[in-house]
Protein backbone atom coordinates (compact mmCIF):
# COMPACT_ATOMS: atom_id res chain seq x y z
CA UNK A 1 0.00 0.00 0.00
CA UNK A 2 1.35 3.35 -0.98
CA UNK A 3 0.92 6.20 1.45
CA UNK A 4 0.02 9.65 0.23
CA UNK A 5 1.79 12.63 1.75
CA UNK A 6 -1.43 13.77 3.39
CA UNK A 7 -3.28 10.65 4.18
CA UNK A 8 -6.29 12.50 5.53
CA UNK A 9 -7.18 13.51 2.02
CA UNK A 10 -8.32 10.01 1.20
CA UNK A 11 -11.99 10.85 1.50
CA UNK A 12 -13.38 11.26 -1.97
CA UNK A 13 -13.92 8.24 -4.25
CA UNK A 14 -12.64 10.28 -7.18
CA UNK A 15 -9.30 10.54 -5.38
CA UNK A 16 -9.02 6.79 -5.25
CA UNK A 17 -9.72 6.47 -8.95
CA UNK A 18 -7.12 9.14 -9.64
CA UNK A 19 -4.47 7.33 -7.64
CA UNK A 20 -5.16 4.12 -9.52
CA UNK A 21 -4.94 5.91 -12.87
CA UNK A 22 -1.62 7.45 -11.87
CA UNK A 23 -0.28 4.11 -10.72
CA UNK A 24 -1.33 2.57 -13.98
CA UNK A 25 0.63 5.24 -15.94
CA UNK A 26 3.71 4.82 -13.80
CA UNK A 27 3.63 1.04 -14.02
CA UNK A 28 3.40 1.15 -17.81
CA UNK A 29 6.31 3.59 -17.96
CA UNK A 30 8.39 1.36 -15.71
CA UNK A 31 7.41 -1.78 -17.58
CA UNK A 32 9.00 -0.63 -20.82
CA UNK A 33 12.52 -1.47 -19.67
CA UNK A 34 11.44 -4.92 -18.62
CA UNK A 35 9.52 -5.40 -21.86
CA UNK A 36 12.63 -4.43 -23.81
CA UNK A 37 14.72 -6.95 -21.87
CA UNK A 38 12.04 -9.60 -22.28
CA UNK A 39 11.78 -9.18 -26.03
CA UNK A 40 15.54 -9.04 -26.53
CA UNK A 41 15.86 -12.27 -24.54
CA UNK A 42 12.94 -13.88 -26.31
CA UNK A 43 14.40 -13.16 -29.74
CA UNK A 44 17.94 -14.16 -28.73
CA UNK A 45 17.07 -17.48 -27.15
CA UNK A 46 16.79 -19.50 -30.41
CA UNK A 47 20.34 -18.75 -31.48
CA UNK A 48 21.71 -19.09 -27.96
CA UNK A 49 20.10 -22.51 -27.86
CA UNK A 50 21.57 -24.01 -31.00
CA UNK A 51 24.72 -22.00 -31.29
CA UNK A 52 25.64 -21.24 -27.68
CA UNK A 53 27.33 -18.22 -26.15
CA UNK A 54 30.94 -19.20 -26.76
CA UNK A 55 30.71 -19.20 -30.55
CA UNK A 56 29.96 -15.48 -30.47
CA UNK A 57 33.56 -15.02 -29.36
CA UNK A 58 35.46 -17.94 -30.87
CA UNK A 59 34.09 -18.38 -34.40
CA UNK A 60 36.51 -17.57 -37.18
CA UNK A 61 34.58 -14.55 -38.42
CA UNK A 62 31.19 -12.81 -38.59
CA UNK A 63 29.39 -14.35 -41.53
CA UNK A 64 25.90 -15.21 -40.32
CA UNK A 65 24.70 -16.54 -43.70
CA UNK A 66 27.35 -19.28 -43.36
CA UNK A 67 26.59 -19.78 -39.70
CA UNK A 68 29.65 -17.96 -38.32
CA UNK A 69 28.89 -15.56 -35.49
CA UNK A 70 32.07 -13.97 -34.14
CA UNK A 71 31.10 -10.63 -32.61
CA UNK A 72 34.61 -9.80 -31.38
CA UNK A 73 35.67 -7.51 -34.27
CA UNK A 74 32.56 -5.44 -33.71
CA UNK A 75 33.06 -5.41 -29.94
CA UNK A 76 36.62 -4.18 -30.44
CA UNK A 77 35.37 -1.56 -32.90
CA UNK A 78 32.82 -0.26 -30.40
CA UNK A 79 35.41 -0.26 -27.64
CA UNK A 80 38.09 1.57 -29.67
CA UNK A 81 35.68 4.23 -30.90
CA UNK A 82 34.30 4.74 -27.40
CA UNK A 83 37.66 4.92 -25.63
CA UNK A 84 39.12 7.27 -28.21
CA UNK A 85 36.23 9.68 -28.19
CA UNK A 86 35.80 9.71 -24.41
CA UNK A 87 39.54 10.34 -23.96
CA UNK A 88 39.37 13.39 -26.21
CA UNK A 89 35.93 14.66 -25.24
CA UNK A 90 36.32 14.48 -21.45
CA UNK A 91 39.11 17.05 -21.07
CA UNK A 92 37.56 19.27 -23.73
CA UNK A 93 34.16 19.12 -22.04
CA UNK A 94 35.58 19.97 -18.63
CA UNK A 95 37.65 22.78 -20.14
CA UNK A 96 34.50 24.15 -21.78
CA UNK A 97 32.74 24.24 -18.43
CA UNK A 98 35.77 25.81 -16.69
CA UNK A 99 35.90 28.42 -19.42
CA UNK A 100 32.26 29.40 -18.85
CA UNK A 101 32.72 29.66 -15.08
CA UNK A 102 36.18 31.08 -14.56
CA UNK A 103 37.79 32.42 -17.70
CA UNK A 104 35.19 33.95 -19.98
CA UNK A 105 33.74 37.42 -19.53
CA UNK A 106 30.00 37.07 -18.87
CA UNK A 107 28.64 37.90 -22.35
CA UNK A 108 31.09 35.53 -24.02
CA UNK A 109 30.23 32.74 -21.57
CA UNK A 110 26.57 33.27 -22.40
CA UNK A 111 27.15 33.04 -26.14
CA UNK A 112 29.39 30.02 -25.72
CA UNK A 113 26.72 28.21 -23.66
CA UNK A 114 24.21 28.87 -26.43
CA UNK A 115 26.61 27.40 -28.97
CA UNK A 116 27.11 24.28 -26.87
CA UNK A 117 23.35 23.90 -26.44
CA UNK A 118 22.82 24.13 -30.19
CA UNK A 119 25.57 21.55 -30.77
CA UNK A 120 23.82 19.24 -28.31
CA UNK A 121 20.61 19.51 -30.32
CA UNK A 122 22.05 18.51 -33.70
CA UNK A 123 20.68 15.10 -34.73
CA UNK A 124 23.19 12.31 -35.12
CA UNK A 125 22.28 11.80 -38.76
CA UNK A 126 23.36 15.39 -39.50
CA UNK A 127 26.68 14.80 -37.73
CA UNK A 128 27.06 11.66 -39.78
CA UNK A 129 26.28 13.50 -42.98
CA UNK A 130 28.80 16.22 -42.16
CA UNK A 131 31.39 13.54 -41.43
CA UNK A 132 30.60 11.89 -44.73
CA UNK A 133 30.95 14.99 -46.90
CA UNK A 134 33.66 16.90 -44.98
CA UNK A 135 35.66 14.71 -42.65
CA UNK A 136 36.07 11.57 -44.75
CA UNK A 137 37.51 13.34 -47.82
CA UNK A 138 39.95 15.16 -45.50
CA UNK A 139 41.11 11.94 -43.84
CA UNK A 140 41.23 10.27 -47.25
CA UNK A 141 43.81 12.83 -48.34
CA UNK A 142 46.08 12.01 -45.41
CA UNK A 143 45.68 8.26 -45.57
CA UNK A 144 43.19 6.53 -47.91
CA UNK A 145 40.52 5.16 -47.85
CA UNK A 146 38.99 7.79 -45.56
CA UNK A 147 36.13 6.00 -43.80
CA UNK A 148 37.97 4.81 -40.71
CA UNK A 149 38.19 4.39 -36.98
CA UNK A 150 39.65 7.91 -36.82
CA UNK A 151 36.60 9.40 -38.53
CA UNK A 152 34.39 7.52 -36.08
CA UNK A 153 36.36 8.75 -33.08
CA UNK A 154 36.26 12.37 -34.26
CA UNK A 155 32.54 12.35 -35.02
CA UNK A 156 31.74 10.66 -31.71
CA UNK A 157 33.91 13.21 -29.90
CA UNK A 158 32.01 16.11 -31.45
CA UNK A 159 28.74 14.39 -30.61
CA UNK A 160 29.30 13.62 -26.96
CA UNK A 161 31.26 16.80 -26.18
CA UNK A 162 28.26 19.16 -25.85
CA UNK A 163 26.29 17.02 -23.40
CA UNK A 164 29.42 16.37 -21.40
CA UNK A 165 30.17 20.11 -21.32
CA UNK A 166 26.63 20.86 -20.17
CA UNK A 167 26.72 18.31 -17.37
CA UNK A 168 30.18 19.48 -16.26
CA UNK A 169 28.85 23.04 -16.32
CA UNK A 170 26.02 21.99 -14.02
CA UNK A 171 28.32 20.23 -11.57
CA UNK A 172 30.70 23.22 -11.43
CA UNK A 173 27.73 25.48 -10.73
CA UNK A 174 27.03 23.32 -7.67
CA UNK A 175 30.40 24.10 -6.08
CA UNK A 176 29.57 26.39 -3.12
CA UNK A 177 30.82 29.94 -3.56
CA UNK A 178 32.23 29.90 -0.03
CA UNK A 179 34.99 27.58 -1.29
CA UNK A 180 35.90 30.11 -3.96
CA UNK A 181 35.92 32.99 -1.49
CA UNK A 182 37.98 30.98 0.95
CA UNK A 183 40.47 30.15 -1.74
CA UNK A 184 40.73 33.77 -2.87
CA UNK A 185 41.28 34.88 0.72
CA UNK A 186 44.25 32.51 0.93
CA UNK A 187 45.76 34.19 -2.11
CA UNK A 188 45.53 31.16 -4.37
CA UNK A 189 45.81 31.69 -8.10
CA UNK A 190 42.92 30.89 -10.44
CA UNK A 191 44.43 27.65 -11.68
CA UNK A 192 45.38 26.53 -8.18
CA UNK A 193 41.80 27.18 -7.06
CA UNK A 194 40.43 25.13 -9.93
CA UNK A 195 42.82 22.23 -9.50
CA UNK A 196 42.85 22.12 -5.72
CA UNK A 197 39.32 23.14 -4.78
CA UNK A 198 36.85 23.25 -7.66
CA UNK A 199 37.65 19.98 -9.42
CA UNK A 200 37.79 17.89 -6.23
CA UNK A 201 34.51 19.42 -5.06
CA UNK A 202 32.82 18.70 -8.38
CA UNK A 203 34.42 15.28 -8.77
CA UNK A 204 31.43 13.03 -8.33
CA UNK A 205 29.27 15.09 -10.66
CA UNK A 206 31.99 15.03 -13.31
CA UNK A 207 32.46 11.26 -13.01
CA UNK A 208 28.73 10.66 -13.37
CA UNK A 209 28.67 12.82 -16.49
CA UNK A 210 31.57 10.91 -18.02
CA UNK A 211 29.98 7.53 -17.33
CA UNK A 212 26.73 8.57 -18.97
CA UNK A 213 28.78 9.81 -21.93
CA UNK A 214 30.45 6.42 -22.20
CA UNK A 215 26.96 4.98 -22.51
CA UNK A 216 26.08 7.40 -25.28
CA UNK A 217 29.30 6.68 -27.15
CA UNK A 218 28.64 2.94 -27.03
CA UNK A 219 25.03 3.30 -28.11
CA UNK A 220 25.50 5.78 -30.93
CA UNK A 221 24.52 4.29 -34.27
CA UNK A 222 23.81 6.51 -37.25
CA UNK A 223 26.77 8.87 -37.25
CA UNK A 224 29.25 6.09 -36.73
CA UNK A 225 27.56 3.91 -39.34
CA UNK A 226 27.98 6.69 -41.87
CA UNK A 227 31.69 7.38 -41.34
CA UNK A 228 33.37 4.14 -40.27
CA UNK A 229 33.37 2.17 -43.50
CA UNK A 230 31.63 -0.84 -41.94
CA UNK A 231 34.18 -3.50 -42.88
CA UNK A 232 34.00 -6.38 -40.41
CA UNK A 233 37.54 -6.40 -39.04
CA UNK A 234 39.44 -5.45 -35.94
CA UNK A 235 41.18 -2.20 -36.93
CA UNK A 236 44.98 -2.34 -36.66
CA UNK A 237 45.45 1.40 -36.84
CA UNK A 238 43.20 4.41 -36.72
CA UNK A 239 43.07 4.78 -40.51
CA UNK A 240 41.48 1.37 -41.09
CA UNK A 241 37.73 1.03 -41.62
CA UNK A 242 35.79 -0.95 -39.03
CA UNK A 243 32.27 -1.76 -37.87
CA UNK A 244 30.66 -1.25 -34.47
CA UNK A 245 28.07 -3.42 -32.80
CA UNK A 246 25.34 -0.84 -33.28
CA UNK A 247 26.17 -0.25 -36.95
CA UNK A 248 26.07 -4.00 -37.49
CA UNK A 249 22.50 -4.17 -36.22
CA UNK A 250 21.37 -1.21 -38.31
CA UNK A 251 23.00 -2.59 -41.46
CA UNK A 252 21.82 -6.18 -41.33
CA UNK A 253 18.47 -6.02 -39.57
CA UNK A 254 16.66 -5.17 -42.81
CA UNK A 255 17.37 -8.55 -44.42
CA UNK A 256 18.25 -10.80 -41.49
CA UNK A 257 16.19 -13.97 -40.96
CA UNK A 258 16.20 -16.86 -38.55
CA UNK A 259 19.42 -17.36 -36.59
CA UNK A 260 20.97 -14.30 -38.19
CA UNK A 261 18.18 -12.06 -36.88
CA UNK A 262 18.44 -13.78 -33.54
CA UNK A 263 22.18 -13.12 -33.45
CA UNK A 264 21.54 -9.41 -33.98
CA UNK A 265 19.23 -9.46 -30.97
CA UNK A 266 22.06 -11.05 -28.98
CA UNK A 267 24.23 -8.05 -29.76
CA UNK A 268 21.33 -5.80 -28.76
CA UNK A 269 21.11 -7.70 -25.49
CA UNK A 270 24.84 -7.18 -24.86
CA UNK A 271 24.43 -3.43 -25.47
CA UNK A 272 21.46 -3.29 -23.15
CA UNK A 273 23.30 -5.07 -20.33
CA UNK A 274 26.38 -2.84 -20.67
CA UNK A 275 24.23 0.30 -20.58
CA UNK A 276 22.30 -0.92 -17.56
CA UNK A 277 25.58 -1.55 -15.77
CA UNK A 278 26.83 1.95 -16.61
CA UNK A 279 23.61 3.61 -15.42
CA UNK A 280 23.87 1.76 -12.13
CA UNK A 281 27.52 2.86 -11.78
CA UNK A 282 26.52 6.46 -12.44
CA UNK A 283 23.76 6.18 -9.87
CA UNK A 284 26.14 4.89 -7.20
CA UNK A 285 28.79 7.49 -8.02
CA UNK A 286 26.41 10.42 -7.95
CA UNK A 287 25.48 9.62 -4.37
CA UNK A 288 28.98 9.19 -3.09
CA UNK A 289 31.07 12.16 -2.14
CA UNK A 290 34.69 11.40 -2.88
CA UNK A 291 37.45 12.85 -0.78
CA UNK A 292 41.13 13.27 -1.57
Amino acid sequence: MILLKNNTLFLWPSDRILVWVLRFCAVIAAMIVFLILLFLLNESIPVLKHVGMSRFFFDSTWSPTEGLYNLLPMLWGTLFAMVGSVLIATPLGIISALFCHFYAPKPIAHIYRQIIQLLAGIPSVVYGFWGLVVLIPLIGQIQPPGPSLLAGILILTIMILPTLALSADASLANVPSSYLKGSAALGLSRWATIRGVVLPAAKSGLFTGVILEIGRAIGETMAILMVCGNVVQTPKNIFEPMRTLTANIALEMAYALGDHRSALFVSGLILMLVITGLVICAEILSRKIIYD
Partner: protein
Amino acid sequence: MNITTDSAYPWSPLEKRPACCEPKSFLEIKNLSLSYKGEKAFEGVNLDLYQGCITALVGPSGCGKTSFLTALNRLTDLISGCKLSGSIKLAGEDIQASSVDILALRRRVGMIFQKPNPFPLSIRKNILFPLREHGTTDKSEANAILERVLQQVGLWDEVKDRLRAPALSLSGGQQQRLCIARALALKPEVLLMDEPCSALDPISGGIVEDLITSLRGKYTILIVTHNLAQARRIADYTGLFWVRNHVGQLIEYGTVKEIFESPKEELTRAYIQGMRG
Protein backbone atom coordinates in the same frame (compact mmCIF):
# COMPACT_ATOMS: atom_id res chain seq x y z
CA MET B 1 20.10 46.37 34.99
CA ASN B 2 21.49 49.03 37.22
CA ILE B 3 22.98 51.91 35.27
CA THR B 4 25.43 53.96 37.25
CA THR B 5 25.24 57.67 36.83
CA ASP B 6 28.35 58.81 35.05
CA SER B 7 29.92 55.72 33.59
CA ALA B 8 28.73 55.16 30.04
CA TYR B 9 29.29 51.49 30.52
CA PRO B 10 26.69 49.64 32.55
CA TRP B 11 28.82 46.66 33.47
CA SER B 12 31.72 46.15 35.81
CA PRO B 13 34.87 48.18 35.10
CA LEU B 14 37.51 46.77 32.77
CA GLU B 15 40.28 44.73 34.27
CA LYS B 16 43.83 45.68 33.41
CA ARG B 17 45.16 43.81 30.41
CA PRO B 18 48.75 43.32 29.29
CA ALA B 19 49.97 45.91 26.85
CA CYS B 20 50.00 44.18 23.50
CA CYS B 21 52.54 46.33 21.85
CA GLU B 22 53.79 49.80 21.42
CA PRO B 23 51.17 51.62 19.34
CA LYS B 24 52.91 51.50 16.00
CA SER B 25 50.53 51.71 13.12
CA PHE B 26 50.81 48.90 10.60
CA LEU B 27 47.77 49.21 8.36
CA GLU B 28 46.85 52.81 7.60
CA ILE B 29 43.51 53.49 6.05
CA LYS B 30 42.81 57.01 4.82
CA ASN B 31 39.46 58.33 3.61
CA LEU B 32 38.34 54.96 2.33
CA SER B 33 34.99 54.76 0.50
CA LEU B 34 33.36 51.89 -1.27
CA SER B 35 30.43 51.93 -3.62
CA TYR B 36 28.62 49.01 -5.12
CA LYS B 37 26.96 49.70 -8.47
CA GLY B 38 26.81 53.41 -7.67
CA GLU B 39 25.42 52.86 -4.18
CA LYS B 40 27.74 53.78 -1.31
CA ALA B 41 28.36 51.05 1.23
CA PHE B 42 30.59 53.19 3.48
CA GLU B 43 32.60 56.36 3.09
CA GLY B 44 35.35 58.46 4.59
CA VAL B 45 36.81 55.84 6.89
CA ASN B 46 40.10 56.76 8.56
CA LEU B 47 41.62 54.07 10.70
CA ASP B 48 45.09 53.01 11.86
CA LEU B 49 45.55 49.42 12.90
CA TYR B 50 48.38 49.01 15.40
CA GLN B 51 50.84 46.23 14.97
CA GLY B 52 50.16 43.18 17.10
CA CYS B 53 46.92 44.55 18.51
CA ILE B 54 43.39 43.28 18.28
CA THR B 55 40.99 45.85 16.93
CA ALA B 56 37.26 45.19 17.03
CA LEU B 57 34.68 46.78 14.77
CA VAL B 58 31.21 46.89 16.26
CA GLY B 59 27.90 48.24 15.00
CA PRO B 60 24.54 47.15 13.73
CA SER B 61 24.23 44.87 10.73
CA GLY B 62 24.19 46.38 7.26
CA CYS B 63 26.48 49.27 8.13
CA GLY B 64 29.36 48.17 5.92
CA LYS B 65 31.66 46.44 8.40
CA THR B 66 32.02 43.30 6.31
CA SER B 67 32.46 45.30 3.10
CA PHE B 68 35.17 47.28 4.86
CA LEU B 69 36.93 44.07 5.83
CA THR B 70 36.88 42.64 2.31
CA ALA B 71 38.33 45.89 0.95
CA LEU B 72 41.47 45.36 3.01
CA ASN B 73 42.62 42.23 1.15
CA ARG B 74 41.01 43.31 -2.10
CA LEU B 75 38.46 40.52 -2.14
CA THR B 76 36.29 43.36 -3.45
CA ASP B 77 38.01 42.77 -6.78
CA LEU B 78 35.91 39.64 -7.14
CA ILE B 79 32.65 41.54 -6.98
CA SER B 80 31.73 43.20 -10.22
CA GLY B 81 30.55 46.80 -9.96
CA CYS B 82 32.54 47.44 -6.80
CA LYS B 83 34.47 50.72 -6.63
CA LEU B 84 37.01 51.59 -3.98
CA SER B 85 38.54 55.02 -3.33
CA GLY B 86 40.92 56.35 -0.70
CA SER B 87 44.18 54.77 0.34
CA ILE B 88 45.17 51.64 2.24
CA LYS B 89 48.79 51.26 3.24
CA LEU B 90 50.18 47.99 4.55
CA ALA B 91 53.51 48.67 6.28
CA GLY B 92 53.84 51.82 4.19
CA GLU B 93 52.98 50.15 0.87
CA ASP B 94 49.90 51.16 -1.06
CA ILE B 95 47.94 47.94 -1.63
CA GLN B 96 45.80 49.41 -4.36
CA ALA B 97 48.68 50.12 -6.70
CA SER B 98 48.46 48.20 -9.95
CA SER B 99 51.93 46.77 -9.39
CA VAL B 100 50.81 44.92 -6.25
CA ASP B 101 50.84 41.14 -6.52
CA ILE B 102 47.33 40.49 -5.32
CA LEU B 103 47.98 36.85 -4.41
CA ALA B 104 50.96 37.82 -2.28
CA LEU B 105 48.84 40.53 -0.66
CA ARG B 106 46.17 38.01 0.30
CA ARG B 107 48.84 35.81 1.74
CA ARG B 108 50.01 38.67 3.99
CA VAL B 109 46.44 39.64 4.87
CA GLY B 110 44.56 36.50 5.84
CA MET B 111 40.82 36.29 6.30
CA ILE B 112 38.45 34.20 8.40
CA PHE B 113 34.80 34.09 7.40
CA GLN B 114 31.67 34.03 9.49
CA LYS B 115 30.71 30.57 8.31
CA PRO B 116 33.62 28.11 8.49
CA ASN B 117 34.59 27.25 4.92
CA PRO B 118 37.09 24.42 4.83
CA PHE B 119 37.56 22.92 1.39
CA PRO B 120 35.99 19.52 0.73
CA LEU B 121 39.42 17.90 1.10
CA SER B 122 41.07 16.05 3.93
CA ILE B 123 42.13 17.93 7.04
CA ARG B 124 45.83 17.88 6.17
CA LYS B 125 45.27 18.80 2.54
CA ASN B 126 43.28 21.85 3.58
CA ILE B 127 46.49 23.21 5.05
CA LEU B 128 49.12 21.64 2.80
CA PHE B 129 47.53 22.54 -0.51
CA PRO B 130 47.56 26.36 -0.07
CA LEU B 131 51.08 26.05 1.36
CA ARG B 132 52.29 24.21 -1.71
CA GLU B 133 50.69 26.75 -3.99
CA HIS B 134 52.59 29.48 -2.19
CA GLY B 135 55.86 27.73 -2.83
CA THR B 136 56.48 25.46 0.17
CA THR B 137 57.31 22.32 -1.79
CA ASP B 138 59.51 20.63 0.78
CA LYS B 139 57.42 17.84 2.33
CA SER B 140 59.03 17.69 5.75
CA GLU B 141 58.94 21.46 6.10
CA ALA B 142 55.26 21.52 5.12
CA ASN B 143 54.47 18.76 7.62
CA ALA B 144 56.28 20.66 10.35
CA ILE B 145 54.17 23.72 9.58
CA LEU B 146 51.05 21.54 9.58
CA GLU B 147 51.79 20.30 13.07
CA ARG B 148 52.79 23.72 14.37
CA VAL B 149 49.65 25.54 13.20
CA LEU B 150 47.34 22.76 14.36
CA GLN B 151 49.06 22.94 17.76
CA GLN B 152 48.65 26.69 17.71
CA VAL B 153 44.88 26.46 17.26
CA GLY B 154 44.62 23.57 19.73
CA LEU B 155 43.42 21.11 17.12
CA TRP B 156 46.45 18.83 16.99
CA ASP B 157 45.47 16.53 19.83
CA GLU B 158 41.93 16.29 18.53
CA VAL B 159 42.79 15.36 14.95
CA LYS B 160 46.35 14.01 14.85
CA ASP B 161 45.09 10.46 14.38
CA ARG B 162 42.73 11.31 11.55
CA LEU B 163 44.53 13.90 9.46
CA ARG B 164 43.30 12.18 6.33
CA ALA B 165 39.63 12.37 7.32
CA PRO B 166 37.47 14.82 5.41
CA ALA B 167 37.56 18.31 6.89
CA LEU B 168 33.80 18.57 6.58
CA SER B 169 33.43 15.76 9.13
CA LEU B 170 34.73 18.08 11.86
CA SER B 171 32.35 19.98 14.14
CA GLY B 172 31.60 23.65 13.41
CA GLY B 173 34.04 24.96 15.99
CA GLN B 174 36.79 22.59 14.83
CA GLN B 175 36.18 23.65 11.23
CA GLN B 176 36.57 27.29 12.18
CA ARG B 177 39.82 26.56 14.02
CA LEU B 178 41.01 24.63 10.98
CA CYS B 179 40.28 27.68 8.85
CA ILE B 180 42.30 29.82 11.24
CA ALA B 181 45.13 27.27 11.12
CA ARG B 182 44.98 27.32 7.35
CA ALA B 183 45.37 31.09 7.36
CA LEU B 184 48.17 30.95 9.95
CA ALA B 185 50.13 28.41 7.91
CA LEU B 186 50.71 31.08 5.28
CA LYS B 187 52.41 33.30 7.92
CA PRO B 188 50.14 36.30 7.49
CA GLU B 189 50.88 39.66 9.08
CA VAL B 190 47.29 40.78 9.32
CA LEU B 191 44.23 38.63 10.09
CA LEU B 192 40.77 39.85 9.15
CA MET B 193 37.97 38.09 10.98
CA ASP B 194 34.34 38.49 10.02
CA GLU B 195 32.28 37.49 13.07
CA PRO B 196 34.27 34.27 13.45
CA CYS B 197 32.23 33.05 16.44
CA SER B 198 28.70 33.99 15.53
CA ALA B 199 27.89 30.88 13.50
CA LEU B 200 29.15 28.60 16.30
CA ASP B 201 27.55 27.29 19.45
CA PRO B 202 28.53 29.18 22.65
CA ILE B 203 31.11 26.64 23.82
CA SER B 204 32.97 26.35 20.50
CA GLY B 205 32.63 30.11 20.16
CA GLY B 206 34.36 30.51 23.49
CA ILE B 207 37.22 28.23 22.41
CA VAL B 208 37.70 30.19 19.19
CA GLU B 209 37.60 33.44 21.15
CA ASP B 210 40.33 32.22 23.50
CA LEU B 211 42.34 31.22 20.44
CA ILE B 212 42.03 34.73 19.00
CA THR B 213 43.17 36.21 22.31
CA SER B 214 46.22 33.95 22.25
CA LEU B 215 47.22 35.40 18.88
CA ARG B 216 47.61 38.88 20.38
CA GLY B 217 51.04 40.34 19.81
CA LYS B 218 51.87 37.93 16.98
CA TYR B 219 49.44 39.18 14.36
CA THR B 220 47.64 42.40 13.68
CA ILE B 221 44.00 41.39 14.01
CA LEU B 222 40.87 43.18 12.87
CA ILE B 223 37.71 41.48 14.04
CA VAL B 224 34.14 42.38 13.16
CA THR B 225 31.62 41.43 15.81
CA HIS B 226 28.02 41.99 16.79
CA ASN B 227 28.81 41.00 20.28
CA LEU B 228 29.75 44.02 22.39
CA ALA B 229 30.78 41.91 25.34
CA GLN B 230 33.15 39.97 23.10
CA ALA B 231 34.69 43.16 21.72
CA ARG B 232 35.24 44.35 25.26
CA ARG B 233 36.76 41.04 26.35
CA ILE B 234 39.30 40.56 23.62
CA ALA B 235 40.02 43.85 21.84
CA ASP B 236 42.61 46.52 22.52
CA TYR B 237 41.02 49.08 20.22
CA THR B 238 37.42 49.43 19.14
CA GLY B 239 35.69 51.27 16.32
CA LEU B 240 31.97 51.88 15.97
CA PHE B 241 30.34 51.73 12.56
CA TRP B 242 26.95 53.30 12.04
CA VAL B 243 24.66 54.15 9.13
CA ARG B 244 24.32 57.91 8.68
CA ASN B 245 22.39 59.26 5.68
CA HIS B 246 22.13 55.71 4.31
CA VAL B 247 25.91 55.38 4.20
CA GLY B 248 28.09 53.45 6.62
CA GLN B 249 30.59 55.55 8.56
CA LEU B 250 33.17 55.09 11.28
CA ILE B 251 31.67 57.08 14.14
CA GLU B 252 34.33 56.74 16.77
CA TYR B 253 37.59 54.90 17.19
CA GLY B 254 39.76 54.53 20.27
CA THR B 255 41.04 52.15 22.91
CA VAL B 256 38.55 49.81 24.45
CA LYS B 257 38.74 51.83 27.67
CA GLU B 258 37.91 55.06 25.88
CA ILE B 259 35.03 53.64 23.87
CA PHE B 260 33.43 51.66 26.66
CA GLU B 261 34.03 54.01 29.55
CA SER B 262 34.25 57.54 28.19
CA PRO B 263 32.93 57.75 24.65
CA LYS B 264 33.04 61.15 23.00
CA GLU B 265 30.04 60.67 20.79
CA GLU B 266 26.47 60.53 22.07
CA LEU B 267 25.72 57.74 19.58
CA THR B 268 28.52 55.59 20.94
CA ARG B 269 27.34 56.09 24.48
CA ALA B 270 23.80 55.09 23.53
CA TYR B 271 24.97 52.02 21.62
CA ILE B 272 27.27 50.87 24.39
CA GLN B 273 24.47 51.22 26.89
CA GLY B 274 22.36 49.02 24.73
CA MET B 275 19.78 51.68 23.99
CA ARG B 276 20.14 51.46 20.24
CA GLY B 277 21.20 48.97 17.68
